[in-house]
């Protein structure tokens, strides 16, 4: 292709705190409108902000996890603009001295590794929420003053897939720190994208469009794919890209222009006079650093090293911290050097059960204790039950909370591998399926599988299919 896309992402993460950033109101989601407000977050005349110290700690923690240099001296600034969801008509944010800057995030995309630069990490307060009803607009200020961390990447992603991988890695890393929920559907993670195109080989950046209003990771990917295509088509048809803000319309799969740069606002940033600058001592920064747990990529590397996992398997298992810890327990408990059997169960049947049952696909939500899973895998590995039967046992385990042994016993599922008892069944099947037997003898190997299937059916799936196949081959030779 003649053009390449250049993408930078601005991600807003709602920090997990009990109270808002500058007052004591609760941050709980989904409460009755305007029930979690006070004069401070409503911006009443005369009120003053007081910084919630936990917010600053969370911000430092995320900055450090993203390998940013953390500023010892940080301050807040006012970003001035009028909007009804903004109670003071200015937002307390950070301008020239953000909490963190110049970090990076490593991502895996199409099997390759890639490093995406982080320009800055800064704190700000959230605005309220506008609700439009017929010809009136209502404002819910419960969200006003909820702490947000804005993470701005460098324009170093070149495809929607890379952007998606960046978001996934970012969400995963932040979730490990337990300082944010990162739920895009609930709005606790929001993402805006700056997109431009340039002829391949060109170093200068093209004119960018800012794409907003994407409500899921898939939405980001789709919106970027659409926007890149739109820009390329526009340029190829002799058009010119203008600097503008565009909104993603998920329903129609299109972006449309909201405002052009000519209408852009001058935010008149200046230092927030109501909050003196904050000095983070190196000692405090070091203390916060000590609380950072092993992060997903470190964990994946260790899984590969210690448990012999493939990079692909490790990558899947570390996405969610609780699941990674669960997986490690399972691997540790599983006897022997080769962990592949239990890993296959984790990323196979367990993950698909998790995806089917819980939207988030969390393994731990299934409620299967590691030793119970090991027991199940043991039955399959010992060929006492087939793989297929094993999956059905797993479903049963999740539903009933019984152990695999109990379920196998209750449902009488132990595989029949004893040739003596199987031979009787095989004789009967051969007699009843003369045509298939003939076909097999004439060289149609598929007919053998049909006969195996008939034996399996007759034994209610309990026959060991390998043994059945061997016996049939012998009989029909």
């Amino acid at each position, binding site marked *: 292709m003649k053009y390449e896309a250049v993408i930078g992402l601005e991600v807003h993460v709602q920090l997990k705190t009990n109270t808002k950033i500058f007052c004591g109101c609760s941050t709980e989601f989904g409460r009755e409108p305007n029930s979690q407000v006070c004069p401070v977050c409503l911006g009443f005349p*005369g009120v003053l902000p*007081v910084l919630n110290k936990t917010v600053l700690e969370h911000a430092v923690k995320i900055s450090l996890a993203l390998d940013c240099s953390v500023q010892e001296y940080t301050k807040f600034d006012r970003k001035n603009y*009028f909007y009804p969801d903004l109670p003071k008509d200015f937002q307390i944010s950070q301008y020239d001295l953000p909490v963190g800057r110049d970090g990076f995030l490593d991502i895996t995309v199409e099997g390759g590794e890639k490093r995406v630069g982080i320009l800055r990490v800064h704190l700000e307060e959230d605005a309220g929420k506008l609700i439009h009803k017929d010809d009136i607009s209502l404002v819910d200020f419960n969200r006003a003053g909820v702490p947000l961390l804005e993470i701005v990447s460098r324009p170093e992603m070149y495809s929607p897939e890379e952007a998606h991988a960046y978001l996934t890695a970012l969400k995963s890393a932040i979730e490990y720190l337990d300082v944010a929920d990162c739920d895009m559907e609930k709005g606790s993670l929001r993402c805006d994208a700056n997109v431009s195109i340039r002829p391949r080989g060109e170093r200068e950046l093209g004119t960018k469009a800012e794409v907003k209003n994407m409500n899921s990771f898939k939405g980001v990917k789709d919106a970027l794919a659409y926007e890149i295509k739109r820009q390329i088509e526009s340029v190829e048809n002799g058009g010119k890209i203008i600097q503008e803000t565009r909104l993603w319309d998920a329903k129609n799969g299109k972006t449309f222009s909201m405002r052009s740069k000519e209408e852009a606002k001058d935010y*008149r940033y200046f230092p927030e006079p*109501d909050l003196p600058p904050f000095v983070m001592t190196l000692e405090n920064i070091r203390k916060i650093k000590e609380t950072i747990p092993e992060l997903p990529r470190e964990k994946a590397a260790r899984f590969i090293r210690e448990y012999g996992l493939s990079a692909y398997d490790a990558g899947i298992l570390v996405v969610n911290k609780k699941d990674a810890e669960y997986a490690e327990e399972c691997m540790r408990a599983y006897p022997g050097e080769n962990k592949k059997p239990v890993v296959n169960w984790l990323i196979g049947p367990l993950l698909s059960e998790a995806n089917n049952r819980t939207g988030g696909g969390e393994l731990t939500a299934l409620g299967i204790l590691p030793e119970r899973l090991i027991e199940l895998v043991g039955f399959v590995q010992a060929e006492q039950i087939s793989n297929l039967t094993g999956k059905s046992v797993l479903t049963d385990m999740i539903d009933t909370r019984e152990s695999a042994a109990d379920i196998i016993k209750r449902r009488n599922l132990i595989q029949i591998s004893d040739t003596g008892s199987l031979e009787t069944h095989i004789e009967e099947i051969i007699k009843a399926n003369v045509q298939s037997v003939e076909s097999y003898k004439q060289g149609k190997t598929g007919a053998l599988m049909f006969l195996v299937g008939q034996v399996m059916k007759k034994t209610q799936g309990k026959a060991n299919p390998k043994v059945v196949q061997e016996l049939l081959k012998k009989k029909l030779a």
Partner: protein
Amino acid sequence: MELAKLTCHELLDLIGAGKTSLEDIFDDLRKRIGQTDHKVRAYVRNSQTENADVCPEICAQSILKGIPVTIKDNICTEGLNTECCSRILSGFRPPYDATVIRKLKEAGASIFPVKANMDEFAFGSSTENSYFGPTRNPWDVKYVPGGSSGGSAAAVAADEAVWALGSDTGGSIRQPAAFCGVVGLKPTYGRVSRYGLIAFASSLDQIGPLTKDVRDSALLTNIIAGYDPRDSTSVDVEVPDYTGALVKDVKGLRVGIPKEYFVEGIDPEVKRTVEDAIQKLKDLGGICKEISLPHTRYAVPVYYIIATAEASSNLARFDGVQYGYRSLQDKAKTSLIEMYARTRGEGFGQEAKRRILLGTFALSHGYYDAYYLRALKVRTLIKRDFDDVFKDCDCVITPTSPTPAFKINERIEDPLKMYLSDLYTISANLAGIPGISIPCGFTKSGLPVGLQILAGSFREETLFRAAYTYEQSTPWHLQKPEL
């Protein structure tokens, strides 16, 4: 007995001795207001509070025993109109008390239910910029009382208040105190919580007392001072008992007289009166010497950049969405931007609009470095001037204002001239240091002249000691206007 004429500490003595009661004090105050306030107009007259009855909670055990305090209209009082004398806040009743109000209530003060007049949002030096009309100087009602705390100062001077709270961003307590012949203190920035003070310029604003004498000033400061976790700019420095500083002794006190404050622009009568006061302090044992504050001439321009920049942002919230005035219009035909524009166009007075425009300009892209950033740097130089001076001076003495009170309407059309009446008071706000204005004499035509004393940060005790010694050695604070 004319109780309204007395100071708070005198009233407390009388109550303590069983010679008067709170009811008598309120009766006398109400009587006095009824007799004189139609001339002075120190109080805000709006429909909501006009008929408000005074019903103090009497707490015999408390420090202030229910004695009322008059509050400037920009300090939030729960359930009582607080409108900054602006149409845009008409009908606004705060759902909470400012920290100073809470402290006063805890000390047993009654909050006088009618607020004191002021320049709209404290923008002004004459109390002419009030939506409710101007306040007049009790010494001559053809003259302004100064501003922006002109209502508080005039009420105290006219004996319509026992004492009062004002706010000072560039001289708004000290200048009206000087014009009205009362005592006005601007404490160190961070000494008194700003929580609940409707902000004009956050980095300069400070609440302070306006009183009939220095002892009341110390007493009221005792109550309102102190660290407040709700105000991150308040400072956690111990509050001494300021009445302990009321010692009649300035022997050996090192007093700096800045030469830059006695040059052109100063009224000859003010100059002579202040020079007499300096002589008096020398006679009392003070060691006076000429000093220099070289960056003084930049104070007014620096102030009008920083103060208006902060104000333009602080006043953005008055947009008609949540509270206060909203322009009445055909909803269906009006866009959001129009609603904002009309509300603010109709709700703000001329001076408020002027300052919002100035501040917006100073912060605009392309001008920020040349104006706001430069102003911050010069502010540091002004602060350094004072740091240097206080290395070998205990305090600095200046006139409070270059002129005595001027006539109503004399400067209203000339904002530059109006701004210059804060020439001597602005530097203390920029430097964050405390300053007090006390009466030091009268002009031939009978208008009061104020003496300003400045000290280093958190050295209010030095101010009280010098002010008390001078006051107790002179008759000025005992004189009353004829109304």
